[in-house]
């Protein structure tokens, strides 16, 4: 007994030592040997299948293009604690990936990387190998990625959302049942919501419907705030040319007053206040709410909550309507903000030219369609301009279709959307313009006052506004909120933001020159 255990302990010790040595060997072989070019990259979304069909396709396309043997080395990032993983990879030179994909919430870290000089400038690479990329990204897209001090591009927006991805949706069949018109103005909209709650729009004889539903975030109230020309989460241009945080603007008070009344009358689904796990898709599928601020893409026939909704409510129909017109005649949809993810090329990359060739290739319509949708006729058929899958999602995952989605296009090469939905996206680009003109995104990465106070200020906003909506505080609490907001550091934040905004306007001129010289001739 004793000998056995001692022996096994000894064995374990030997095993520890031996693997410690052997794994060192494996880490050494990562260097490229005999003409093979290895490109490592972090990937955070999509099916995370190693050595997939899509990877092989991409490798063979690239090998053909470059005449070298190309081997991709994908590093899949976990969905939770993604930023931690990126941080760890970046904390040592030899574990950095060649292409770093990172979430826009890592801008402070990006700031550190730039300062430490571990990223490469994209400009010369784009000029040489990035034609397709340059042609599919707009000047504005590049401005927010551009580093004004060094006049270099250390990051590039990876995925740019469509300019307007959300829309007000309303139950068309309920409107018909109640003999109501599609609401256009704010007052009409409120009346429809009330009727949806009280007049039994589904005709089941039960008082089980709600006018407004949606997720937990402020954008769910877009038809209310936006029709009043405010956004409680962004900095807005004022008439005098300065910036003010949307949450402290006086119009917010009117909206909160209306929301408080609607909540009291039972028009707003009470689930909306607490469901941190936004079960908005579930609500959409159930069809117990009359209106939501929801995805444009939900109009696609293969959208799964939509299919579920149809199964439960065969006669039901959601209609995507134009933005509600407010009391002052203002109307806007929510414009997409700054990019949600970026790509950087690190100093670990010994062959940035080939890397850029790869990225450019992934941006070309043919290659993009092949690796994000598969082969036409085999993996999907075209239907109304959208890909209608022939294989199951599990098979799709196994083939790695959708894994390599750097630099994806949002034009008609994107087969996710039907022609009709693409048209709707184009409309939403226009209808979101009024607010796009008002919102200012601060580009600067060094924002000490914002970093220090924004957490507390946003907590105060969320707490106060929800308390007002649910009737726990009177509407007048908004005035105290504004005072409190400035007292808690809001004054410093406002000043800092205005200074940065002025600086940003100057930067713009500098950027225009740079763009003319470095980008335009290479398109």
């Amino acid at each position, binding site marked *: 007994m004793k000998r056995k255990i001692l022996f096994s*302990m000894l064995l374990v*010790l030997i095993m520890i030592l031996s693997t410690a040595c052997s794994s060192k060997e494996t880490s050494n072989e990562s260097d490229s040997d005999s003409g093979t070019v290895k490109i490592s990259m972090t990937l955070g979304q999509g099916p995370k299948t190693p050595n997939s069909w899509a990877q092989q396709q991409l490798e063979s396309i690239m090998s053909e293009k470059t005449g070298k043997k190309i081997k991709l080395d994908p590093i899949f990032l976990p969905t939770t604690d993604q*930023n931690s993983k990126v*941080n760890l990879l*970046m*904390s040592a030179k030899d574990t950095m990936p060649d292409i770093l994909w990172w979430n826009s*919430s*890592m801008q*402070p*870290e990006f700031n*550190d*990387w730039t*300062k*430490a000089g*571990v990223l490469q400038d994209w400009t010369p690479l784009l000029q040489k190998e990035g034609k397709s990329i340059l042609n599919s990204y707009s000047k504005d897209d590049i401005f927010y990625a551009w580093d004004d001090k060094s006049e270099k591009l250390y990051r590039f927006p990876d995925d740019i959302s469509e300019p307007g991805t959300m829309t007000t949706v309303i139950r068309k069949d309920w409107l018909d049942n109640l003999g109501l018109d599609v609401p256009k103005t704010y007052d009409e909209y409120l009346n429809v919501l009330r009727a949806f709650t009280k007049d039994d729009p589904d005709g089941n004889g039960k008082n089980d419907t709600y006018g407004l539903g949606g997720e*937990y975030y402020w954008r769910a109230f877009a038809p209310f705030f936006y029709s009043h020309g405010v956004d409680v989460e962004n900095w807005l241009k004022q008439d005098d040319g300065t910036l003010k945080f949307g949450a402290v603007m006086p119009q917010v008070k009117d909206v909160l007053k209306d929301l408080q009344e609607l909540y009291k009358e039972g028009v707003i*689904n*009470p*689930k909306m*206040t*607490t*469901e*941190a*796990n936004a*079960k908005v898709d579930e609500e959409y599928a159930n069809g117990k709410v009359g209106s939501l601020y929801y995805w444009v893409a939900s109009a696609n026939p293969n959208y799964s909550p939509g299919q579920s909704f149809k199964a439960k409510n065969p006669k039901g129909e959601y209609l995507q309507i134009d933005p509600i017109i407010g009391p002052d005649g203002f109307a806007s949809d929510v414009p997409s903000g700054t990019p949600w993810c970026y790509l950087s090329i690190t100093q670990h990359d010994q062959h940035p030219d080939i890397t850029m060739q790869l990225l450019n290739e992934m941006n070309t319509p043919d290659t993009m369609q092949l690796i994000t949708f598969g082969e036409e006729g085999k993996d999907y058929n075209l239907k109304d301009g959208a890909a209608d899958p022939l294989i199951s999602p599990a098979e799709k995952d196994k083939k790695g279709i959708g894994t390599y989605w750097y630099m994806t296009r949002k034009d008609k090469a994107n087969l996710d959307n039907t022609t009709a939905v693409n048209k709707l996206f184009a409309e939403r680009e226009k209808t979101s313009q009024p607010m796009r003109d008002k919102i200012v995104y601060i580009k600067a990465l060094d924002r000490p006052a914002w*970093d*220090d106070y*924004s*957490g*507390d200020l946003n*907590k105060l906003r*969320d*707490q106060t*506004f*929800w*308390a007002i909506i*649910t009737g*726990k505080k009177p509407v007048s609490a908004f005035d105290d909120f504004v005072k409190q907001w400035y007292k*808690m550091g809001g004054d410093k934040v406002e000043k800092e933001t205005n200074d940065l905004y002025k600086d940003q306007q100057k930067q713009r001129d500098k950027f225009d020159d740079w763009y003319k010289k470095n980008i335009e001739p290479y398109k």
Partner: protein
Amino acid sequence: MEPTTKQSLSVPVKPKSSIWKDIVRDKYLYLLLLPGMILLIIFKYIPMYGVIIAFKDYNILLGITKSAWVGFEQFEKLFRTPDFLQVLWNTLLISLYKLVAGFTLPIILSLLLNEVRKIGFKRVTQSIIYLPHFISWVVFAGIITTFLNPVDGLVNYILQLFGHEAIDFLGNSHYFRSVLVSTEVYKTVGWGTIIYLAAISGVNPELYEAAIMDGANKFRQMWHVTLPAIRPVIIILVILSLGSILEAGFQQIYLLYSPLVYDVGDVIDTYVYREGILNANYSFATAAGLFKSMIALILIVTANRIAKRFGQSGLW
């Protein structure tokens, strides 16, 4: 310990050689200690230089040693926040509730289980009540919101059957902490019984026989035999759980709370998460962690002293 001290008092031996003698005498004990200690020192102590980033403005690429010193700035920031007292109070209250419920209920439950005579029934019960432990908070939180929501949740459905008005459990400051504590207990109570059942199985059956001879009924047996027998384990577990006095359960709260209940549900961890991690302020997060650890250490050492003063065996 005692014989050696007596010896060293009576016979003047060089203290050095007596230590050496003791070590040689216990060489096999040190040998048993060694492999585990090596692992602890390598994997826990070597990286511990990392805590100094609490006193630095940490830049991930400059590394820990090269980042600039800022002294207690991060701690000041933590204490200066307008809600700090509220957040600290919430943390203490929630974790104290959880601590009390989390150590009494498993003991009671294991005593009840111990009284079940049918082995089959006992085993099935044990196996089922420990199941919730395996459900991750992400999934469990989804189930909780489904059950507790004020519109079509099952709990409110039952309340309404009895003519009670629907309650928004997760959006109401009066109920939120109770929801946190009860869901935590629900998830961990079965799991918590395992250690006590292991302890109870070590009780000498002769003690029960003797107690029965003395005419003790079941309750008296529990009180006079079972509980004293598992008392050392209970004390150890209570002392150790003080180490997590400022851990109110980040994942659970993060998944269940909303602005409506920030006043009662915002705890140090959620606060630091919003503040530190979202702004990539690692130094701040580390400072908050260090603050929690210091409090925990003080509590554990004090509790251990108290236990020993009352003649119980503590941690050491």
